[in-house]
């Protein structure tokens, strides 16, 4: 499958008074149209920072960005990192769109829903204000908002959280974008509403044949919709694989830890959920060697103390399955079975 977005060695850092914060460190991934890539990791692992960099939404004054994020447009490839801000702006909404975590605060409180969607539509379409509102009504209907003709004139505070997220999706999709980045789209919502929104995203992806990047910290969400998964830790991708490989053959101790911390129906009753001990390292002073070492229960199995001295490469240990760990495949198999039986 030819990728639509190709992110290569993307590094985003923020100079602060305390030092350089390396929020996203040498990140590479691809995503094709019709495919959903989940980017998983805890808070501060660099998921959002990476996607905002692709969208060109970091202030160029406060962020240092290097690497490439190439969109394979019908008109030819375009790197959103090196392109001018104006050129990237003209891709936003049309070629790539984004929805955000908190639908409560992501809509302008002073404008009606219809006005806000019509505004996005009018950027790339010719037509009157009434045409825009008509298009907004269609989009509201498409994302499953009842009585769209009436609600299009209402304001954000008159909508519930789930309905607002539907509005956000309608607004992001109004110009039929090729790539949709969904940054924790369900985190602020009730569990029942979460799965409705995920299903909606899935349906919309089919409808528009979009590439979707789903950013989340919730592996349950990932299981529902993703085709492939990138696991990020301390600004780096530590594991990248097909969805089934991540769940059944996790190849990095961090991923194994994440999976052990969520309940699963296919595992023994009475098993206690295991938390990963410790805290992620400071992004200002990353430790030498593997960033996960201090929290990893297998690092002493690696000879010559390599985990403390040498940053592991992102190796393709199995086909299409990358992981950033010094452990051998045999050691990892043992780690997996050990973790599962505890």
């Amino acid at each position, binding site marked *: 499958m030819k990728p639509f977005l190709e992110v290569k060695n993307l590094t985003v850092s923020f100079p602060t008074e305390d030092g350089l914060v390396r929020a996203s460190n040498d990140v590479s991934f691809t995503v094709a149209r019709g495919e959903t890539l989940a980017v998983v990791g805890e808070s501060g692992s660099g998921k959002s920072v990476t996607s905002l960099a692709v*969208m060109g*939404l970091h202030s160029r004054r406060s962020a240092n960005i290097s690497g490439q994020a190439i969109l394979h447009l019908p008109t030819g490839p375009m790197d959103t990192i090196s392109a001018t801000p104006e050129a990237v*702006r*003209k*891709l*936003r*909404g*049309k070629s790539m*769109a*984004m929805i*955000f975590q*908190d639908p409560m*605060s*992501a*809509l*302008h*409180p*002073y*404008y*009606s829903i219809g006005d806000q969607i019509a*505004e*996005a539509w009018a*950027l*790339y379409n010719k037509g009157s204000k009434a045409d825009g509102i008509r298009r907004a009504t269609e989009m509201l209907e498409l994302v499953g908002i009842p009585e769209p003709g009436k609600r299009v004139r209402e*304001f954000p*505070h*008159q909508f519930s959280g789930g309905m607002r997220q539907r509005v*956000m999706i309608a*607004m*992001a999709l109004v110009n039929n974008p090729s790539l949709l980045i969904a940054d924790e789209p369900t985190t602020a919502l009730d569990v029942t509403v979460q799965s409705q929104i995920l299903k909606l995203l899935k349906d919309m992806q089919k409808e528009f044949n979009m590439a979707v990047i789903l950013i989340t910290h919730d592996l349950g969400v990932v299981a529902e919709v993703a085709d492939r998964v990138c696991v990020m830790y301390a600004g780096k991708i530590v594991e990248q694989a097909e969805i089934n490989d991540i769940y059944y053959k996790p190849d990095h101790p961090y991923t194994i830890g994440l999976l052990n911390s969520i309940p699963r129906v296919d595992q023994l009753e009475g098993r206690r959920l295991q938390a990963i001990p410790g805290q992620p390292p400071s992004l200002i002073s990353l430790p030498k060697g593997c960033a996960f070492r201090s929290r990893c229960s297998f690092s002493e199995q690696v000879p010559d103390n390599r985990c403390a001295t040498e940053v592991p490469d992102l190796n393709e240990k199995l086909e299409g399955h990358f992981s950033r760990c010094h452990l051998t495949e045999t050691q990892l198999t043992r780690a997996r079975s050990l973790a599962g039986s505890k």
Partner: protein
Amino acid sequence: MLKYLARRLAATLMVITLVSMSVFLIFDVLPMDPARLTCGKGCSPAVIEANRHRLGLDVPVQVQYGRFVKGLFVDRQYGDGAAAFSCPAPAFGYSFNRHECVTTLIADALPVTFSLAIGAFFLWLLIGISLGVIAAKRQGKWQDKASTAFVLFGISLPTFISGILILLMALKFRLIDPIEMGRWVSPFESPIGWAKNFIFPWLTLALAFAATYTRFTRSNVLETSSEDYIRTARAKGLSEKVVLRKHILRAALAPILTIAGLDFAGLLGGAIITENIFNLPGLGRLSIRAVLNDYDLPVIVATTLLAATFVVVMNLLVDIAYAYIDPRVRVA
């Protein structure tokens, strides 16, 4: 909305009534005798008592108040017999020092004060908001620092200093004719003459107010810029210009409307210092003269009540306008 309006209107009337009553009471308890002040040193007690009767001060304060309220709606008679005269409604009283109906005095002063207030208002909004927006957009750059300096300068300089400095400059560079200064020119007869008359008083007031508005606009724009919905606006693909004009300013300037309305209303009650410096015969000068020179009770009552009314009514107007700007207020 109609019910809300009716409720607010009733409350506004109530406040105005209470203010007028308090004003009456305050002047009643002051150890001053307006009747004694109506004539010179060698006044006989008989004349004083006659004047007291003509002023309507020989009856209890509640009756005086009743007559005052009545005078607002029907013509008011003063004195009796051949010496009787009347002020047409709405009569705020009769000034025995100036020998005129208070309503006439106010009608002469109000256009001056209104001209001063409206010009200064637009000038300070223009300066304050533009500087505030520039400072926020160039945060940390020299533009921001320059505007901070302006804010400090404007806030720390009282109008009685800045006004005199501006007046001296204007006189030195012959921008004002000292003889013509302060003469009322109607904007309908000569807009340029009107503006020339008021430009320096406008600048004086605008300097003081613009500083506060610059600071307020700057912090509001910065705060709004970091809102999630502004990121959404950028993610849509809107240009920075549209994001600023339509999305940031709409939200950042709404709270400014509230204080701007009240500041404007406050000025309508009279800008005492500025009017005095520039010799403008407005409400501020009318009231300060009434207080300082001749304890002109009817004038003081009228100007105080008028100033309070402006504030209360403007408050109501601002609240109504706010409901149109912020849809969240509309339903509540």
